[in-house]
């Protein structure tokens, strides 16, 4: 006596599909496969897509999920990733393979251990027999009344070429269908069965399709029938766990870490600083070091960066507000100190120059054009710092050398805390003290 003699709910039968529709056969064969496997229904999820096949989950005495059109594979992927013990079986039509083709390809590529049964009847039966991605060329549908001009998608080859673990094409009426479904459910990886069948409401009568013509169509299209691919690629949900198990509770699993004030600072009003350079000059990280130095000095800081989407080329700007009290507004209306490291930086910040006052300062690479401004201008011989990636930090040291509102010691401590191989950066900070021309 079987523990689970039936996975279909007898109280809800018969199935609602049209007379002769292949869907009824596939549902019965899936039931047979489950009976053979005797899977605990609590560990099985039938996920359905949209279309007539989407009515099928209702009849199964397992878990069930009925979702949006084409997205069934994404839901199934999430289920399997969160709980690898589940047997997740997706029932979708050829319509779902069109709208959700992208997900199908990526599920195959990932080799996520779900089973996809494609109820392939070459058209959208539920909405009145429109053309689908699997409609053979020349076929008549309600949206290709003069014959389909497009080539049908080879669903099997599409997933196979992208690494699917188990792929087969069959016909709903084939004797071996239940066995094939069983094999695909037990395969440890992504499995897809492309099951060809008749839509007796639309496609079959429109195209004089019957069982024997169905077999011929596969041959006419040059498509393969039977098992197309079977491999042993690792299944994703288990591979994910195996790969990451050794990294559990490494120091990486903690983020954050506070800074304690241990240096004195001489700052009585907020200072707004803009550092303007080019990609590759490490403007952002130098600004972050200055901000950390502010925290180490008992001050508060905010830091925002501005750069084009191409992070490795073009300008790179960082704005800092350093304040003895809380920084209320982290935007900058006018900088007190403008540091210009490159032509890109100058182009981006040139507009500020006219707003600067006698109390403000500009620190600028002495290779750049002379700027017109009321602010005090300090030219920096930045060419003496050979590596461009060290120039932002050197310029910051120049600023602090001029007015030590944060101590150089605090800056050096911040460098040591933030940068693993800090030697060259500490040296650049030291050199920065002597760059003003």
């Amino acid at each position: 006596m079987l523990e689970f003699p039936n996975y279909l709910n007898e109280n809800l039968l018969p199935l609602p599909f049209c007379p002769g529709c292949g869907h009824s056969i596939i549902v019965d064969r899936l039931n047979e496969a489950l009976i053979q496997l005797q899977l605990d229904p609590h560990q099985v999820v039938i996920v359905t897509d949209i279309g007539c096949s989407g009515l099928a989950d209702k009849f199964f005495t397992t878990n069930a999920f009925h979702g949006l059109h084409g997205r069934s594979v994404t839901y199934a992927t999430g289920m399997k990733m969160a709980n690898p013990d589940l047997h997740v079986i997706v029932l979708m039509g050829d319509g779902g393979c069109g709208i959700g083709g992208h997900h199908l390809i990526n599920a195959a590529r990932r080799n996520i251990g779900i089973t996809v049964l494609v109820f392939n009847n070459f058209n959208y039966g539920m909405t009145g027999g429109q053309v689908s991605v699997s409609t053979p060329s020349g076929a008549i549908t309600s949206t290709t009344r003069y014959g389909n001009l497009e080539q049908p998608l080879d669903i099997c080859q599409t997933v196979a070429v992208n690494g699917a673990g188990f792929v087969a094409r069959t016909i709903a009426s084939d004797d071996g269908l239940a066995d094939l479904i069983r094999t695909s459910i037990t395969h440890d990886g992504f499995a897809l069965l492309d099951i060809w069948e008749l839509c007796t409401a639309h496609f079959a009568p429109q195209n004089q399709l019957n069982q024997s013509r169905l077999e011929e169509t596969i041959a006419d299209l040059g498509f393969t029938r039977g098992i197309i691919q079977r491999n042993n690629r690792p299944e994703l949900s288990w591979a994910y766990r195996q790969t990451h198990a050794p990294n559990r509770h490494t120091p990486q699993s903690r983020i954050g870490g506070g800074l304690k004030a241990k240096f004195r600072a001489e700052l009585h009003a907020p200072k707004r600083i803009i550092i303007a350079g080019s990609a590759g000059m490490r403007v952002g990280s130098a600004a972050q070091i200055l901000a950390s130095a502010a925290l180490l000095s008992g001050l508060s800081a905010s830091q925002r960066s501005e750069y084009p989407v191409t992070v490795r080329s073009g300008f790179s700007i960082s704005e800092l507000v350093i304040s003895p009290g809380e920084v209320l507004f982290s935007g900058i209306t006018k900088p007190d100190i403008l540091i210009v490291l490159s032509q890109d930086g100058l182009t981006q910040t040139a507009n500020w120059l006219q707003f600067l006052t006698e109390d403000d300062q500009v620190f600028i690479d002495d290779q750049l054009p002379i700027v017109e401004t009321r602010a005090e201008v300090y030219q920096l011989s930045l060419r003496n710092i050979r590596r461009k990636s060290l120039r932002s930090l050197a310029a910051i040291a120049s600023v602090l050398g001029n007015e030590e509102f944060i101590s150089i010691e605090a800056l050096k401590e911040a460098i040591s805390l933030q940068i693993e191989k800090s030697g060259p950066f500490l040296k650049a900070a030291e050199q920065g003290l002597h760059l003003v021309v």
Partner: protein
Amino acid sequence: MRELIDGNEAIVRGALDSGCDFFAGYPITPATSILLLMSQLLPTMGGVALQTEDEIAAMGVCIGAVLSGARAMTATSGPGISLYSENIGAALMCEVPLVIVDCQRMGPATGGATTVAQSDIQFLQWGTSGGYPQIILSPSTVAECYTLTGKAFALAEKLRMPVFIAADKEMVSTRVTIASDSLTGITSLSRETLPPEEPFQSFPAHQPGQPYPLAHFGGPQLVRVSTSSHDEEGYLTKDARAMERLNNHLWAKVNRIKSELEDVSWDPQNEAEVLIISYGITVQAVTAAVNAARKAGKQVASLVLRSIWPVPENALSTALLGVQRILVVELNHGQYRREVERLAAPGQQVVGINRVDGRLITPEQILEQV
């Protein structure tokens, strides 16, 4: 101890402290650093972080994961929310607890990837078909990125629905100084699930708005979930009364506790004729402006909204009483102003302070109107 962190990191820490163990997302500026941090941290904590093929899949994967027992979050920006749209509806319909972070950037379309805006504030509420109420929280400080993420998880679990964090490019990517202990205090509540002896039920037959405890795939009950109209047992239905019960339940979930969801800071001042309303990133400039105005001897009141949807109507109505001018400060053309206008009394002047050039509204810009 003090730290220098940005809003995205605070959101991640809030999520992890809330027990989030699943993340799926697709790279997009300015939300990417959440994906990066989650990909770095979750695998080492026994969780899962997956970069999906697109934003549609990110939402789908999260929904599937939650129904199999995970606690999930996803994060994106405006263009990604556009792609989340259909599955936001799915999560509402299937009553899937989920936290969705929108790091807003300038739109429409691809807009300005690295440019701040608050232009999704109506879109988040109305961005999926059906027109059902959403819960949208908006942090106005980096510390609130942490606390509101905790709150979002708590609400998502309690109400079994997606809850949004509406942040923005400047909030999530500007590093600020905050006390380390302001990034603590979230307790991860264990999920209320259906006791094993209880039969599965999708939603309550008689108590609209009070979600039934979640049951997971792989758990003691057989679970049936549908994005289509369904009855209490989870079966797809066209029965008018069953559909009405479901829809009334989804409607009542948020609306019956609307006033409990209100989360604002009201800073009134006696005889103030001006009230400034702000949320999210504009709160910084408003606070600076209010301080400066009061220093100059002006009477100004301020109302900061942390819960954006449902509209905190009680708090707004109270704060509106007695003032003559109301300034609504936001980085869009005045999307939230309409919510204030419908609550204002005749004769009250509602003025927008807006900016759509990708720059922050400055304290000076606000002071001109005070």
